[in-house]
């Protein structure tokens, strides 16, 4: 009896595979035709200049056909594997419930991991410059401390700052780089014209940026969603245009040069008597300044993180999150949404201002080129990629985004595989695009998909990301 049943089911599966293959072939053929259609104008035909500077149409039909065949094969494979999985699930009687699995995952274990990542991460970061300097020497470690360490930490700090506005308050800000620019130019101008020191300019830059945050906040208070995004985007561009065109103050495209370097409370990092090396009786090395900058931005970023974590547990932070969840309910509970939004804008902007003045002191040079829209987009991508509202997530996302960008500069080893004519730099954006698509499929709510409650009675339970709103704008 049992054997008969097995036999029956095998034959059924056999015919199933046949029908599935036919369906998959149809699906894949359609995808192939679409690819062929798309490739026809951009791959199959190519206009090139010949020796006499005339455009010649090159035909590369084989390329288009190869692309179509590749897509056909890949699509066929994907559909078959998916069908196989569905069939197996049907046979065992359990449907493949992807959402259910995703919902179950956020558990206490994950919360514990999240907590330890923070502590370990901070410890590693404090040891990072010392260890790299010890093993790689001062010239070898410069790249790691400066290009990776300092660069990533700037974006971690910017991400944490924007996280207040976008992640907590749910206000989509596409012009965040404007406040970064305000901070950078504040320090550049105050130090070059008035000769103020970095340590005095740092809080001033933060305050000025916060002021601009409020100035932007007022007109956009009534805007939501796409409208808010467009206006903040425009604001970022306005600031950049002012920096370009107000040449008397900002020196336009040429930017401001020779910005004074930061000192360790008056001790400069120079090879002179009274410099850092001679005061502490060690040998002078330019890496000392870089290491100082590393610790400086690390402390600034940690301050941002500390303040944000604290704020989340205070009524103001809770009001931000409530605003993201439901603005009308907020008003019915007596929360003044105007001041709540403005404080979110102001605090987010303030941290960008701090980061901006650090940027100016690190580069020693600022120009409007550094504050284009792509910077805003990168910072926003970090916040979204990290998982909106999650501090650890944003930090990890900054490492992936900025560290990834830096790493992609170092793809020279691929030449050994593909030959010397292969230029990996050309594929950087392609890899980035693939990464984005992969994220959209597997982690649509960012790296950290859960929300940690700000207060608990008995037990801290993570809130599933599917319940948390993204805000209305």
């Amino acid at each position, binding site marked *: 009896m049992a054997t008969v049943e097995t036999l029956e089911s095998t034959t059924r599966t056999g015919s199933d595979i046949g029908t599935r293959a036919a369906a998959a072939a149809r699906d894949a053929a359609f995808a192939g035709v679409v690819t062929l259609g798309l490739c026809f104008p951009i791959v199959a035909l190519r206009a090139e200049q010949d020796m006499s500077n005339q455009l010649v149409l090159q035909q590369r039909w084989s390329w288009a056909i190869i692309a179509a065949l590749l897509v056909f094969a890949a699509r066929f494979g994907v559909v078959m594997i998916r069908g196989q999985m569905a069939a197996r699930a049907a046979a065992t009687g359990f449907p493949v419930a992807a959402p259910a699995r995703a919902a179950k995952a956020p558990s206490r274990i994950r919360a514990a991991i999240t907590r330890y990542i923070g502590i370990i991460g901070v410890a590693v970061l404090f040891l990072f410059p010392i260890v790299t300097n010890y093993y790689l020497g001062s010239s070898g470690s410069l790249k790691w401390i400066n290009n990776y360490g300092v660069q990533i930490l700037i974006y971690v700090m910017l991400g944490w700052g924007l996280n207040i506005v976008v992640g907590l308050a749910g206000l989509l800000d596409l012009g965040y780089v404007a406040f970064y620019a305000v901070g950078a130019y504040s320090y550049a101008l105050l130090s070059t014209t008035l000769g103020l020191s970095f340590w005095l300019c740092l809080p001033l830059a933060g305050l000025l940026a916060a002021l601009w945050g409020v100035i932007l906040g007022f007109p956009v208070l009534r805007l939501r969603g796409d409208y808010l995004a467009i206006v903040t985007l425009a604001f970022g561009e306005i600031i950049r245009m002012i920096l370009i065109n107000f040449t008397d103050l900002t020196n336009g495209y040429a930017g401001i040069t020779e910005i004074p370097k930061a000192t360790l409370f008056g001790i400069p990092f120079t090879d002179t008597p009274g410099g850092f090396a001679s005061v502490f009786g060690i040998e002078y090395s330019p890496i000392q300044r870089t290491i100082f900058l590393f610790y400086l931005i690390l402390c600034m970023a940690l301050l941002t993180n500390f*303040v944000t974590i*604290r*704020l989340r547990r*205070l*009524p*103001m932070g*809770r*009001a931000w*999150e*409530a605003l993201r*969840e*439901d603005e*009308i*309910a*907020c*008003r*019915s*509970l*007596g*929360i*003044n*949404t105007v001041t709540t939004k403005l*404080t979110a804008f102001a605090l987010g902007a303030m941290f960008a201002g701090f980061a901006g003045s650090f940027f100016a002191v690190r580069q020693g040079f600022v120009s409007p080129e550094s504050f284009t829209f792509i910077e805003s987009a990168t910072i926003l991508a970090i916040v979204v990629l990290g998982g909106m509202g999650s501090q650890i997530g944003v930090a990890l996302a900054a490492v992936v985004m900025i560290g990834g960008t830096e790493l992609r500069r170092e793809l020279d080893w691929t030449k050994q595989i593909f030959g010397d004519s292969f230029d990996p730099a050309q594929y950087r954006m392609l890899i980035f695009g693939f990464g984005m698509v992969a994220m959209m499929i597997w982690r649509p709510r960012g790296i950290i998909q859960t*929300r940690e*409650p*700000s*207060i*608990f*009675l*008995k*037990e*801290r*339970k993570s*809130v*599933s990301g599917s*319940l*948390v*709103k993204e805000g209305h704008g």
Partner: protein
Amino acid sequence: MRWKTDPLLVVEHLSMRFGGLVAVNDLSFAVGRGDITALIGPNGAGKTTVFNCVTGFYKPTEGRLSLARQGKAAQHDVDALTLSSKRHQATSSGDLYLLERMPDHEISWKARVARTFQNIRLFQGMTVLENLMVAQHNTLMIASGFTILGLFGVPSYRAKERQAIEKAKFWLDQIGLTDRADDPAGELPYGAQRRLEIARAMCTEPVMLCLDEPAAGLNPKESADLNSLLRKIRSEHDTSVLLIEHDMSVVMEISDHVVVLDYGIKISDGTPGEVRNDQRVIAAYLGVDDEEVEKVEAEIGV
């Protein structure tokens, strides 16, 4: 008859027009202190519009909404305040507020009118406890020195926060959700979400609680629980209740005073018994036989 002898809220000549549409037309009624007042009427009668005017979500086109927080206000005080450009006046009988002049968040925080919504508006991604903490925002905000003292974790703020948690626990106990305090509000069953929304509104310490269809979607047992919760709120917390409700079992059982609206006009006002037997209410709700239309219309004065 407390709505005549000791009114908490007096609505006079309230009109709300949206372009050419008159949603509420010259409506006057009073909410008695300590009463449960029901605002009923067929769909589209303008009940929610009245609510939105009372709670400041709409600015009324015309009319006066005066709320005497502690005791019955003298008419001359109300008139004096109306003539001034102020929103609030401390009188001999207590604080007097003109709600039509106040923005929504001030009505909640200063005049102490809390509300719930027809379609539940909880902070779904926040836990049950967090929802109740957000409701105590202004008290905690002051205690945290507008965040500055709170950042340094001063003891006075910590104490206030503990008090706030205690109050949240009290209300969780009242609505039977203590076990679910750390769960996200969006994961609660529908009936529990309705109760949580009421508890959240009560955490703002209101003198008047406006409930927009609190029994909608509840089963008979949950409805009965709601009735006892509302009675308890009225008797133990100095909170008057104004509610919109279609469920007549709730309305007739718990309310002291019923106001009936139809097409933005008040058609009846009185005790549940009076309203139940009012011809115009019956006509508005059930309609009348064809042959009686003229007679009833003449009676109503249409």
